[in-house]
């Protein structure tokens, strides 16, 4: 239960208290996958042995990420290990991730790690997200993603629900759209798959307005499809 301050900078301020729950990565991805969104599957492992067995089953190279209801920014606490190629590396990475999370966030509850196959290389990093604006309600955002998204601020917004035309315009408004359109030998990414993903997110929010915030960051955009490799969801709980 947490108070959530909704604030408009446009002269009509109000404060609303609603109770919120952050889904962990496993829960968030399950919710999105159910709706047909292209997300990289992730499984929870509570011990090093479980992590190694899961990685062997889903295939190497693998990635591990800390799972905790109290840690939102996983890489900030050293909670991410990428490109693991053997069970031994997975075991070592599990211990390392848990230890650095314990040191960086001693009060955090640690559920284990999310094990997922490494996404293939070469995708452009895009962010797709949802939040609730105090004046206009649910809005969707797209932008050039990755960890620098708040520095670059190359994003565009629309209100949900979204039409195909809106989705296309969101992409065309990005200053860095040439990264997606192909340059210097890099092929263009699959714009229609991105448009489709925006429409899927819009549809999901229409069915699930209790989703208050959503980050798919990054979504890897390839010439032949898109894949969300990390997901963050904040739900409004019934009172």
């Amino acid at each position, binding site marked *: 239960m947490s108070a959530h*301050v909704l604030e408009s900078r446009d002269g009509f301020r109000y404060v609303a208290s609603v109770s919120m729950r952050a889904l962990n990565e496993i829960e968030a991805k399950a919710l999105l996958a159910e709706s047909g969104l292209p997300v990289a599957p992730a499984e929870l492992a509570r011990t090093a042995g479980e992590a190694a067995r899961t990685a062997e089953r889903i295939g190497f190279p693998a990635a591990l990420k800390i799972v905790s209801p109290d840690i939102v920014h996983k890489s900030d606490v050293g909670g991410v290990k990428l490109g693991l190629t053997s069970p031994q590396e997975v075991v070592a990475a599990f211990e390392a991730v848990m230890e650095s999370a314990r040191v960086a966030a001693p009060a955090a509850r640690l559920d284990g790690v999310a094990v997922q196959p490494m996404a293939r290389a070469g995708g452009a990093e895009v962010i797709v*997200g949802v939040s609730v604006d105090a004046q*206009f309600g649910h*809005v969707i*955002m797209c932008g050039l993603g990755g960890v620098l998204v708040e520095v670059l601020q190359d994003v565009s917004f629309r*209100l949900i629900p979204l039409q195909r035309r809106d989705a296309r315009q969101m992409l065309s408004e990005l200053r860095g759209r040439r990264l997606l359109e192909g340059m210097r030998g890099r092929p263009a990414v699959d714009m229609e798959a991105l448009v489709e993903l925006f429409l899927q997110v819009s549809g999901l929010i229409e069915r699930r307005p209790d989703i208050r915030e959503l980050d798919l960051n990054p979504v890897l955009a390839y010439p032949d499809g898109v894949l969300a490799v990390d997901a963050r969801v904040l739900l409004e709980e019934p009172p």
Partner: protein
Amino acid sequence: MSRFHAQLDRAFNARVVAVVGDKRHNAFIWLRGLRNFSRQLYSVQIEPKEVAAIEAMGVRNVRSLSEIPEPIDYAVLVVPRAAVPSALRDCARQQVGAVTVFTAGFSETGEVEGIRLEQEILAIARQANLLVIGPNCMGVANPRLGLCNFPGEASGPEAAGPVAFMGQSGTHTITFCMRAPAEGVGISKAVSFGNALTADAADYLDYLRTDDETSVICAYIEGVRDGRRFYDVLRQTTPTKPVILWKGGVSAAGQRAIFSHTAALATPQAVWQGMVRQAGAISVESQDELLDVARTLLAGKSAHGWRAGLVAMTGGPSVVMTDVFTETGLEVPLLADASYAKLAQFFRVVGGGLGNPLDAGSTIAMGFDADNLKRLLEVLHDDPGIDLIALDLGGSMSLDRWNDYPTKVQPVFDLLAAFATRSHKPFAVVLEAPHRPVEVAQRCDELRRDGVLTFASPQRAARALRRAVEYWRFRAGVE
């Protein structure tokens, strides 16, 4: 149709207007503002000295609203804030169509008594189904009827036209009413609605959406009470009428609890811009730009492409014009081969430049060779790769030459007017000489009266054309 349609209709087309208040609270500003009101105006006042002054102004004064022997369509309250509730009850009893509360000192102060009084006003208005415009505003204007909300605003048929203005700010509304007619933009209706207590931006927009006298809607907005409702009305309006939105309060800071990158980046400004684009409306950043875009849309030509054909008199301005148009998101492509073939027959490259822009001063005698100027504009008009045409008239140098050779000016202006009428493509004329504002205004006025679209700088021309093309593309369904 707006839920306040009937009340707003009575206010905007009022047959009987009453101003309640005294000199100390600025009621005389209202009486002077309504000096040209072509219908019946009453003042409501009991103070003998004030009454004498009011009657000396030629205004009929009564001691109370109930003494007015005919239905009151619109009343303005210019009384101390503590007296507003009882004055409003009077209005309700007399079944006044709509009431503007000019008085300030309510929720905008953030102070307890102001907020309490505003809630009291709201309760009275709701109970009586009374439209209260404001409080803290300048109310409605209809220049055609001389229904003005400030002294010095133009009125009568000269000031009337197809453009409506709605604004949260009284000053911006008054300024628009003074300025727009002077720049050739006639006003259908204008309303300043201040604290937006009973009716909000969406209600005024909804009224203007179905108003037959309005074909372009301009608005100054700081915030809207119900964003979704405003968006819905906006979306219903833009397919038939352009809506130009000037947003104030974009730099105010705020904070919120952050879970996601999205929420961190979802500033009100970013969301507003997305909403405007999604609804097919036009976003501008100043009153200059508001009027520039309105004039561009009213000029009656449209284009769905960004490609501009540019003409300037000399080298430097043609280079800068290209920079400005390109930076604004327009394109300045080379012309078709056939166009250069036609130009080769008369274009002088010595002292000029053939390309796009056409550096054409020597070819058209700095604008005085009307025949060559006409041929040049025709080439751009007939070029299938050009969507927009812009001509820089040469600024200060040309003002001097026009003064020195007055008889040579009219043929050129006649040609520009004829081309503006005949052209299927939007045609913008730039006259930039900021150090000679009076002459520029006079010359632009001459050109505007003949239907030529003029701008005070290439930047303003480029921005207005860009915004207009975005709207024309939206309306035509071009992605």
